[in-house]
């Protein structure tokens, strides 16, 4: 089966500063591929380029067999992106926000309703969706944003630090939701510096540092290769 996303020699510079020095990876259908690395490693830049927010300085990205750079609008139809520091419109009620976002993807009212129903189920916020987003806690906001990202069952969900700033229970819930949607066919490209989260969520992992891909593989493969007990040790070993 063809890859959903294939990234080859991806480069990105901001003036004289190099953010990505040529990285390769691919996301296969129905898998969770995670980029792990310290702050400033280039994870968010990679995700932003794949999400069509930034343009690359070099390299190739193919999404469903099409050149991402040439057809960004095709890509936007099929992906959803959850930034690390995302927010929702504070003056909108939760339900209105979901309808507003669903409207961009739905081809008819029935489809819009199906998207919103799915999002309502993901958030489990019930009547709170009738109140303004500005009154939500951080956990509630993150859940509605995740629901927005998954409600359309995108081909590829790009999630930047999906559990960032959440407490243990909320983070666990978010991870379970992501796993559930992967089973339904959505591929996921995510980033995190929480190695334990990655081990629980990911099918395959890419270790990234200073804009370079250090290693990639399944968590099990990497642990065996680096004779490590967990991904944190794998990362330390690959840095040497």
């Amino acid at each position, binding site marked *: 089966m063809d890859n959903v996303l294939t990234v080859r020699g991806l480069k990105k510079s*901001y003036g004289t500063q190099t953010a990505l020095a040529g990285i390769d990876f691919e996301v296969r259908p129905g898998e969770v591929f995670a980029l792990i690395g310290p702050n400033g490693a280039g994870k*968010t830049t990679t995700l*932003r380029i794949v999400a069509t*927010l930034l343009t690359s300085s070099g390299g190739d990205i193919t999404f469903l067999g099409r050149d991402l750079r040439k057809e960004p609008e095709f890509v936007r139809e099929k992906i959803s992106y959850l*930034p690390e520091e995302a927010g929702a*419109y504070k003056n909108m009620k939760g339900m209105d926000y979901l309808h507003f976002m669903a*409207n961009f993807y739905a081809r008819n009212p029935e489809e819009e309703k199906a998207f919103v129903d799915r999002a309502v189920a993901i958030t489990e916020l019930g009547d709170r969706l009738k109140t303004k987003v500005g009154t939500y806690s951080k956990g509630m906001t993150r859940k509605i944003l995740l629901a927005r990202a998954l409600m359309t069952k995108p081909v590829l969900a790009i999630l930047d630090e999906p559990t960032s700033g959440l407490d243990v229970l909320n983070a666990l819930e978010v991870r379970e939701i992501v796993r559930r949607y992967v089973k339904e066919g959505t591929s996921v490209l995510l980033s995190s510096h929480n190695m334990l989260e990655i081990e629980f969520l990911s099918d395959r992992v890419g270790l990234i540092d200073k804009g370079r891909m250090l290693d990639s593989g399944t968590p099990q493969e990497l642990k065996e290769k680096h004779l490590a007990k967990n991904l944190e040790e794998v990362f330390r070993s690959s840095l040497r």
Partner: protein
Amino acid sequence: MKRFTNLLKKEIKELVTIQLVISLAFTLLLFNFIGQVSKKEVQKAIGVQTISTLDLDGSAASQALLKGLESARFKILDQSGKTKEQAIETAKAGDSKLLLVIPAGFGDSLQELRPSEIETYSFMRSFSLIGARGQVVVRGVISALNEALSNNFLKERLPELDPQSLKNPIKSKDYVVVKDRMAEGSAGMVAGLISQQSLLIPVVLMMIVIYSSQMVISAVAMEKQNKTLETLLTVPIRRTSIITAKMLAAGLVGLISAAIYMFGFKSFVGGLGEEAAQAGAQTGGATLMRQLGLTFDTTGYFILGLSLFLAILVALALAMILGVLAEDFRSAQNMIMPLMFMVMIPYFISLFADINTVSLPIKIFILAIPFSHPFLVSQNIYLGNYGMIAGGLVYMLVIFAVLVVFAARIFSTDKILTMKLRFGRKRAAAA
């Protein structure tokens, strides 16, 4: 189109907040209130006013002066029998705005054609211009009396001559020529009427530009501050549609806000201006303007409307770019300043200088500001400078196109996320 409508509706809802509605309603009420108060004050000032008089002469001439004041709608409170000091104290304690003291020997002086003095004491209980109107009217009455007395004297001594011809042997008949039309009137009057007619244009333009630009700058800055911009940029909608939706929403809401503001402003000005308007009509200003062809026809209004519309588009496109440069809502408030200056510069220059007579560098500077052109449109229509009008319209259209292309380019590239106007420090864009 469905996606565009979806976004446009959201943009309008974001802009029409309860705060905006309350602020507009408050402005409207405030202007209306001030207008009503001013109207009452004006009516009071032009209505019957009470003045005190102390006639220490009691001659036929002094009686004629007081009769003249009565016919000028003054209510006279006679203080006869009092000393000057007592009359001043009485008038001060009462409602009188003015005390008129006619000294003894007033009539005799006039008979002997010696200059005679009367004294006026104005009681200033406030410093408004309307409050000081009483003294102006008294001066008018005295002047009329002076005129009548000197005429009588001249008629007595030189019955075969017209007193007016004696007093003003040189007379002028003024004509104004505009292009190929000529009419009797003064150039000062024409200039005054034109500036009165054109007064509303800069006010309208400033209001709309400021309201709309503020809204579009805030709309972009708020997306950044609330961290919603990145999500919006990854949904399946064209970047040009995002720009258009934001500009259209801000334009519509700005236009409505400005219209409400103008309505309030009109009711405020209406309180003060009705009398002046009546006076203008009486002096034949309208006829003079018609004779000189200085009136707007449908085409004139269309050109003026088009010019204002293009200026608003330019402001919106510029505001969109400034909004991208702003980091958050607070810095967006500062971004409006350059735009306001660009509107105010041509306004102030047009108040004090004539664009056609200023030096070339200043002329180029003024014409380079797109917002100058709506200010110049009305006088160019009157003077038939259609080349200048067309040039202005084309210039604004070109500037708008350039700005939109630039804004679209910013929105289509990394710049929408990386471009910031920061003072002093730099932050790495890479995560």
